């Protein structure tokens, strides 16, 4: 492998993971914006995304179809899992997250951690053989029979990974447009800055909180689906680490800042990817190194890359 292709591979791997981390981190930032709460159950929402999409793949019989039907069903699976998990996110917001967000920080911390554990354990107990690692099928190979992957400048690109990248980039762009260009996006930003003033303009704050949790949870679900596709396996406790990584990415970017969360997600993933490639036995340490970078950020730039002052958000 030439050094450019090594470099490309690092970037590519980083981007794969970066997309997933970003999609999780965005939720942390959105929720913090409108509710001033850090929702530690968010990683388990990501896990639900993986399990719901796997279930939908089985239920729809996706793998037994081909051609246009296959493409249609695949899109349906992705969108449906986002909608279902988005709805669950709103449900959990209403019964746990919003009620505790008014109380002391410590209480919301414990409550959302508890909620996360409850979701995790529910999957372990009630999903068929839920404590085992589940195989998550490769999906795009079916459309290109006989060829597992494509080669580009000496690096191997799986079709599924290209799907992750393409969908991820499209979704991130759509999200940015939504937040920046639509009335709902404007309203979300206004509520994040001054919820009471927004209500004085006639904004129903509770509705905006619901919308925010729907979007954040749906994006985490998409990340869960991507994660399944990336590793070809999912497990009930996959959300624990993902939640911490997503939260860290949001912090690096400046909690509450959506673009910061996206940048933070990519940065975290690139550090991991670089350490795995450049440091001897780096893949064992890559997460440790990434968290060391997070800690450095907390020490030297506590408001994050794009954060200005601590109290300003979105």
């Amino acid at each position: 492998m030439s050094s450019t292709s090594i470099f490309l591979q690092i970037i590519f791997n980083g981007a794969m993971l970066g997309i997933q981390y970003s999609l999780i981190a965005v939720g942390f930032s959105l929720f913090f914006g409108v509710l001033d709460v850090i929702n530690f159950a968010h990683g388990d929402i990501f896990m639900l995304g993986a399990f719901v999409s796997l279930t939908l793949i089985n239920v729809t019989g996706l793998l037994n179809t081909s051609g246009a039907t296959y493409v249609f069903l695949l899109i349906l699976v992705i969108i449906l899992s986002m909608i279902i998990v988005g709805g669950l996110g709103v449900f959990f917001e209403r019964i746990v997250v919003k009620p505790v967000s008014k109380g002391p920080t410590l209480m919301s911390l414990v409550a959302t951690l508890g909620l996360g554990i409850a979701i995790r354990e529910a999957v372990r107990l009630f999903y068929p053989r839920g404590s085992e690692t589940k195989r998550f099928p490769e999906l795009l190979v079916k459309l290109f029979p006989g060829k597992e992957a494509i080669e580009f400048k000496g690096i191997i690109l799986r079709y599924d990974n290209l799907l992750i990248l393409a969908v991820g980039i499209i979704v991130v762009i759509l999200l940015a447009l939504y937040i920046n260009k639509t009335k709902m996006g404007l309203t979300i930003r206004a509520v994040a800055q001054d919820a009471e003033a927004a209500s004085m303009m006639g904004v129903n704050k509770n509705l905006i909180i619901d919308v925010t949790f729907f979007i954040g949870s749906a994006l985490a679900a998409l990340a869960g689906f991507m994660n399944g596709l990336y590793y070809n396996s999912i497990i009930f406790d996959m959300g624990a680490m993902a939640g911490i990584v997503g939260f860290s990415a949001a912090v690096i970017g400046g909690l509450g800042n959506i673009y910061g969360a996206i940048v933070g997600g990519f940065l975290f993933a690139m550090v991991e990817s670089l350490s795995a490639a450049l440091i001897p036995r780096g893949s064992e340490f890559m997460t440790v190194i990434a968290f060391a970078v997070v800690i450095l950020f907390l020490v030297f730039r506590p408001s994050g890359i794009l954060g200005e002052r601590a109290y300003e958000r979105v």
Partner: protein
Amino acid sequence: MAEMLRMEHVTTVYGINKMLIDVSIKVDKGKCVSLLGSNGAGKSTLIKAILGLVKVVEGKIYFEGKDIIHYSTHRVISLGISIAPEGKRIFPKLTVLENLRMGAYLVKEKKEIERRLEELVFPYFPRLKERLNQIAGTLSGGEQSMLNIGRALMGNPKLMIFDEPSFGLAPILIQETAEIIKKINREKGITVLLVEQNANMALEITHYGYFLQKGQIIAEGTPEELKKEEIIRKAYF
């Protein structure tokens, strides 16, 4: 005369401390009514009571005959109220234009939003027009006050509430603000509830006024009547 807003024997509390005590006011349709009083008298608390932002323990509040005491803020607003709240409650990280658009949150039609910008905001506040894409938090204090008023003008209200609109403005702009409020009331027929420290300015443009002290209404009447009141003369003139 048809009434727009009526408070009857309203008492509010902050924690265990009573703030407003047995306050009754009435704002008739088409009128410009002022609420006077010194710092800490409870003027903003009265506005908060209307908006459902403070705990009302006794009394009733009616808007166009509807009991609104248990309404949440956005529901009160959607009945047809728009407010320029006290302090710098503009959205600091939104642009000037985005702030103005938030003021028109309940206005559904795009054309109407454009029309209100052109007819109600830009003529009065050309400075805002020059700075539409500036981040609102970077406006000067006076410009932020203008934006606060301009944003309220963007709604489509039956009743407009201004909580110390002249605060932080240069004398000439105070005069201009008074003109704008008068115009809104006299020409557009919008009912106005005006909270002011600046009694001279307020009494000049209002039909009726209330004087609040330590949470109680201690005087009310037409501007002429109020100017004669000993207690107000002492406080202001």
